[in-house]
């Protein structure tokens, strides 16, 4: 089987699957269970001044009967004394020396305080630090978490203080609650971070109870915004990872986080530039055991493609991302429906008719049935029909040779201004 081990900025782990700093990494007991299950590394639940949590804390978003397509939480950092956490970190590291243990840290923006915390924690034998500049609820009101992470200069400054004192690699965890993730990633790089991890959770309100009109989750009749995560946030996270990966001013390794639940999700993040991936919601939903298929699936995937090391896929798709202005306006795809596979649910028809370009015809057949046929002259190749079709490989998108040379909007504008000039 392919070698799944990775080395991210000097932090080594036998596979790229880490647990994110979150409830599953709250204690030595949990982390040992996770390592027994096969996780390659953990980011220990954020250490700092122990806090007092509220109940309730979590809420799930169900989509068409699927539980926890999204999740939000208002839990804060560790509520356990630092000494307890450090003692457990030492024990776990002794028992699992080959796994990565990264300590997530949160501290007030003070050089002295950061130095004190870093010194204490690295004595416990952690393999790295992850700075929590992302927590969007509670801690940010106290000037920490995303209060730092939303200001690139503060990221750079706080990171630099930590790097001064740290003898192990420093990862900066970024918040997505900003306008352009690249500015924050650049701040981390400028501060001397050895890697970045993203994304932290997204500001969210999961819902309102229809019977009581109570926003969810409720704490004694009131609610507050929480941090959103789970499968629903994956595309947001993947894009932000891609943006950082292709930014020439970032250029440090990435640990991908956000909705990762399967080996397939992991492959996508790695292709988009992540060296490791961090998981939380999927474990909160199903337990540590999910890593077994993640390891197995990734190994089989690499073997099937003749790739000997997981590192061989890192960043391989980054160069395929560009800005819209560079996309070829002359490229043409059309949909084609495989009549043998079609089950006649008409979902493609109604989607195209009501929401796209009215280019699927329901053609009456002599036997009384109807056949769904794409009007290829009208089809704009938008993918919608293929997306709504419930049958695998029934609707395919075919390339059409337009006979025209590639031309992007940018080139077209340039040509037009050239002509005008």
């Amino acid at each position, binding site marked *: 089987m392919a070698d799944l081990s990775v080395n991210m900025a000097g932090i080594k782990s036998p596979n790229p699957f880490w647990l994110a700093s979150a409830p599953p990494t709250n204690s030595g007991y949990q982390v040992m269970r996770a390592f027994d299950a096969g996780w390659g590394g953990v980011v220990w639940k954020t250490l700092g001044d122990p806090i007092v949590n509220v109940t309730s804390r979590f809420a799930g978003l169900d989509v068409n*009967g699927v539980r926890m397509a999204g999740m939000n939480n208002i839990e804060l950092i560790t509520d356990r004394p630092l000494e307890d956490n450090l003692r457990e970190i030492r024990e776990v590291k002794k028992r699992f020396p080959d796994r990565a243990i990264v300590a997530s840290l949160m501290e007030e923006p003070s050089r002295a305080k950061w130095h004190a915390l870093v010194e204490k924690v690295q004595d416990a034998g952690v393999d790295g630090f992850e700075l929590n500049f992302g927590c969007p609820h509670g801690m940010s009101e106290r000037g920490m978490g995303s209060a730092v992470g939303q200001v690139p200069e503060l990221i750079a400054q706080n990171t630099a203080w930590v790097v001064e004192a740290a003898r192990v690699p420093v990862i900066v965890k970024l918040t997505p609650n900003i306008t352009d993730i690249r500015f924050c990633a650049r701040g981390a790089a400028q501060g001397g971070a050895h890697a970045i991890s993203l994304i932290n959770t997204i500001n969210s309100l999961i819902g309102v109870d229809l019977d009581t009109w109570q926003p969810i989750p409720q704490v004694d009749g009131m609610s507050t915004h929480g941090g959103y995560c789970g499968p629903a946030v994956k595309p947001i996270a993947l894009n932000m990872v891609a943006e950082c990966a292709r930014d020439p001013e970032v250029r440090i390794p990435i640990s991908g986080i956000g909705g990762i639940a399967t080996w397939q999700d992991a492959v996508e993040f790695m292709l988009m530039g992540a060296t490791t991936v961090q998981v939380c919601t999927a474990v909160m939903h199903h337990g540590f055991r999910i890593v077994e298929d993640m390891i197995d699936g990734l190994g089989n995937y690499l073997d099937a493609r003749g790739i000997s090391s997981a590192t061989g896929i890192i960043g391989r798709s980054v160069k395929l991302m560009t800005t819209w202005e560079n996309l070829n306006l002359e490229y043409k795809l059309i949909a084609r429906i495989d009549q043998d596979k079609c*089950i*006649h*649910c*008409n*979902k493609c028809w*109604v989607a195209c008719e009501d929401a796209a370009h009215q280019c699927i015809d329901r053609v009456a057949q002599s036997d009384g049935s109807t056949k769904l046929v794409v009007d290829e002259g009208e089809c704009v190749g938008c993918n919608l029909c293929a997306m709504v079709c419930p049958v695998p490989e029934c609707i395919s998108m075919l390339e059409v040779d337009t006979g025209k040379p590639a031309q992007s909007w940018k080139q077209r504008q340039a040509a037009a201004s050239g002509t005008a000039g």
Partner: protein
Amino acid sequence: MSGLNDSIHKHLTRLEVSAEANRCLFCYDAPCMHACPTHIDVAAFIKKIATDNLKGSARTIMSANPMGASCARVCPTENLCEGACVYAKDAAPIRIGDLQRYATDWARDHNVKLFQPGSPTGRSVAIVGGGPAGLSAARELRCMGHAVTIFEAKNELGGLNTYGIVPFRLSTDVALWEAQQVVGLGVEIKTGVAVGKDIAADDLLANFEAVVLACGMGAVPKLGIPGEELDGVLDALDFIETAKMTGAVRELGKNVVVIGAGNTAIDALTCSKRLGAERVTMYYRRSEDDMTAYPFEYEFAKQEGVEFRWLCAPKRIIGTNGAVSGVEFVRTQRQAVDGGARRPPASLPGSEFVVAADTVIRAIGQSRRTELFDQFGVKHDGAVVQVDEHLETSRPRVYAAGDCIFAKGSREAMVVEAAEQGKIVARAIDRKLEQRHG
């Protein structure tokens, strides 16, 4: 051993219903809807279950099919909606019947009012028979604002749903709730009134602007063999009615013989079994392929422990001291199909045999109400009332729906067809009244 009132339909949990509702693809112009004779918008009612809009779901079902709760239990769904489900070929079809039962049960349990009568038109319609077709027509006509009077010979509404379908398949609670949904719209009910006997056809024609014949069929005809007068020879529908309405039937004895192979025969067989008869056997003069009962009914009867004997025609019923003690059968042979028509099977001389029987139940179809048809002066062919596409009979202002227009064919008449015919009749009458009165 299951009892007479132990439903064959298991309780549905919110968990399984939710999972099943969410599995539905929500097809557009869905084949299940087309396969339903009443064209229930199946995808829409399932979507409403998924969004916890159970009142809306029940209304979607019942607006298309006033017998939607009964049909959820008695429809041959594998031949209709579920058979047409796009999942039927490659995966398990959506359990449409179960979902329909869940939504209509919710409406029944919560006592919600799903429909309102239309504003009064001042027109009045008489409906002869308060079974599925009559109730369906009544519901539609009331929603259109016409006054409706139902004349029902029995004491309760619902027709065969109330009296003729075994309680473990369709309880009277469901049938009567459905009837009550219609009655609640302000329908005048004359139960215990047999049109043609207690009130003349001409009286109806004189007092109402239109008459709907929805009188169904009559008793099970005699077999036409010696010994039918013996104690212990029963009409299947009488037998089921007594069992369903009173919970008790005369002692059936050890051996029950049922003659016939339709759904009523199956009901008589399984009912006998649940009443404790030891050996219950169906005898049919044709072959297994010819049986008119739905495949799922046949399967159910097998599971209940019923036995089947094909190609046996009864010759005479044997009695001891005035009571049934046996039946003599003769073996038969299939006849070649003659131009599409089924020919009676031929007896094989010398193949006679006698079986022990303590009860003989005849379930060979139902007689037709030709006297009533004649009193109304409507044309009928083979005792089937002749109607046009709008279900109007040869006599103006007289319409017919349900089993009384059901031509003997390969399958049994369905409740869902009767419900649809009730809707068609209502539309036709409404249109005519509109034309006549503007």
